[in-house]
């Protein structure tokens, strides 16, 4: 995606603190996200992930510190212009209930260009295809969709205007394991092909490690670790991270026919238990 700045940092948090009254939600967050990165954020509920995310498109203002997008302080940027360049897939996929799927997805393109309806129409169908929704859903209203379908519409809506930055807040929370796999593949592909910078919040460490070029682990408003997936997996920085990745560290990637060769695998233990009966 073209940009006039020579700066190759897409998003930067400079000593961000956020407190609601007495309660501190984010403490001294410092983070630079280079253009084209895929950052996954993980952490327990209430750790400040959504808060950090919404600071990028100025839905939340920090108590202190500065957020820069494309090298510009967001406070000095027109929020409307800022947001139109940032796709936002909201936690819980909040669709507009009075609009059809088609109207929802074309919401942002329609805000931007009011004339080229044909282009928007085509774009909507392309995105429907990418997120794996059949086109006969276009006329439906959100209340007539399943939770997973709604989430996919939410993703399509976030991407429809081809933004430079994509914020995704638990976008795959309500889809089944298999669809989730497909969507993960799709979002990776979109990221690869468009070079879009992605911030992706998830509760699933597997997903975080698989998708992220870098992973940010948050707990109680404090950064526990920020690094490449391998680094997180190989050298957990704190007890919290260690606990988070322990399953992944123990996971073994033996092919199906060799699973029982490792006596610690679930398959081998289950077989042993059956034999003992």
């Amino acid at each position, binding site marked *: 995606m073209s940009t006039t700045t020579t700066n190759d940092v897409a998003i930067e948090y400079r000593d961000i603190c956020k407190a609601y009254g007495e309660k501190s939600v984010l403490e001294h967050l410092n983070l630079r996200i280079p253009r084209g990165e895929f950052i996954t954020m993980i952490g327990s509920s209430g750790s400040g992930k959504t808060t950090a995310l919404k600071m990028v*498109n100025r839905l939340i203002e920090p108590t202190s510190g500065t957020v820069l997008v494309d090298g510009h302080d967001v406070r000095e940027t027109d929020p409307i212009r800022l947001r139109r360049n940032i796709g*936002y897939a909201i936690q819980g996929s909040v669709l507009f209930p009075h609009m059809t799927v088609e109207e929802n997805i074309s919401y942002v393109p329609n805000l931007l260009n009011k004339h080229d309806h044909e282009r928007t129409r085509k774009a909507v169908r392309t995105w429907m295809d990418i997120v794996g929704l059949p086109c006969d859903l276009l006329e439906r209203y959100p209340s007539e969709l399943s939770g997973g379908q709604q989430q996919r519409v939410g993703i399509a809506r976030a991407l429809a205007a081809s933004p430079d930055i994509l914020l995704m807040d638990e976008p795959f929370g309500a889809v089944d394991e298999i669809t989730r796999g497909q969507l993960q593949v799709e979002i990776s592909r979109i990221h690869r092909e468009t070079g879009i910078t992605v911030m992706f919040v998830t509760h699933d460490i597997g997903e975080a490690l698989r998708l992220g070029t870098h992973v940010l682990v948050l707990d109680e408003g404090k950064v526990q670790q920020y690094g490449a997936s391998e680094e997180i997996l190989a050298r957990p920085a704190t007890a919290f991270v260690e606990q988070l990745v322990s399953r992944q560290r123990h996971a073994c990637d033996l092919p199906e026919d060799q699973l029982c060769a490792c006596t610690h695998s679930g398959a081998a233990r289950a077989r042993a238990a059956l034999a003992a009966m």
Partner: protein
Amino acid sequence: MLAQSWDLLVQRWDFFWGLLLEHMEICLVAVLIAIVFGGIAGILISEYQKAAKPTLAVVNFLYTIPSISMLGFLIPFSGVGDATAIITLTVYALLPMVRSTYTGMTNVDPAIMEAARGMGGTRMQTLVRVQLPLALPVIMSGIRNMVTMTIALGGIASFIGAGGLGVAIYRGITTNNAAMTVAGSLLIAVLALVVDAILGFVEKRMRARGAKSHRTNRRLAIGAAAACAAVALGATVPGALAGTGGIIHVATKPMTEQYVMGEALKMLIEHDTNLKVELTEGVGGGTSNIEPAMESGQFDLYPEYTGTGWAMVLKNEGTYSEGEFDQLQAGYQELGMSWVGMYGFGNTYGMAVRKDVAEKYNLKTYSDLARVADHLTLGAEADFFEREDGYDALCNTYGMSFGNTMQMDIGLKYDALAQGSVDAIVIFTTDGKLSTADATVLTDDKGFFPSYQCGNVVRDQVLQQHTELRGVLEKLQGTISEQDMARMNYEVEEEGKDPKTVAEEFLRSKGLI
């Protein structure tokens, strides 16, 4: 009763249909203004929350003002007639509109609003594309309530001389025609129900989703808009066309005899001249509302009573007697008005005794009555016993004291007199029932009661503009005696005749038309 009302509706459908149209027009205008301004206000206060509380407090306050007082406050500013009615209805419609808009707008799921903001919509785009459509169901149900309420409240419009079905209700009440009151009320109820059903249908259509129903909705909306435009056009065009010849605006008070005189004036003026008469019948509050409208030129002519003019308009103290007519006329000249065409009857307090009592004691005057009052029982309304110039003053003037007194409702006095439970009653000299009562009206030989001779008060400007008018009004001079008027009142109130018919018969009998 219902059958009577039904017959009346069928017989006089043109009359009711006209009122129904007027009613719809007045309500439609008020509702549209309220939707636009109430809607805008509701949206604004949902955007600028700080203004919400004071604004809602103000509209709440306006809402608590009784409608009658609201009309009273407004008359000095906007006069009698449709304008005041529409303003009043609008004010009452504002509260439900502002409140439902505000509630609808603020109750939109904040998560959805944040999503819309996060997508990069401007405030205006978010408002128009997301917030307003989502608030619409709440706003719509507010509108539905508001419209029903406005239609019902529209019934009071006639109180201040505006049109609408209230005219029938009010006329029914003042001329003792219950069937007419019921018919008017029924039509209001039916109108409210029908409109509510239509709006319910609109609500349902709006909730219907999908491309096909959207297309149908668009067609229905266009049809409805066209229908509204047609009604509005039908309302304004004839009015605009009628403005060619001279129009005399005649007002009457809410009294049976005034309904008759109004019709007679209209018929006679239109018969003798090229002038058109626009009749505003039964203006609530009588003189206190008609007189200011005369001064502002809204009305040109109305039948008034000398004593009332003397006390209420010229604000003179003391009892008026016809010897002071020149002073009265002079006082009115200063207001730019004249008394033209004194009908010949007075509508004043009087005293009547049963005929056998009159014969037994040979009673002709109040002084005669005073001699024997202690043997007699007097019946009168509560009001007469309370007012300063009422019972006590009468007794003082004539040195009379009744053996017994009874308070009774105006409608029961004549029955009580006939049955013998009272011997004398306080009457109005043109009471319809007096014309058939077996009673003798006594003479007020000391002139205790002020004189209330009936005549036309006309604006001088109109008399100059339409010189032919004076001659017409003078034809009415001395044409109606108190007995005549009482009989005509009787025909309307007790025999259920239409005031117009009675007026026509009267004019014919006098060879005036």
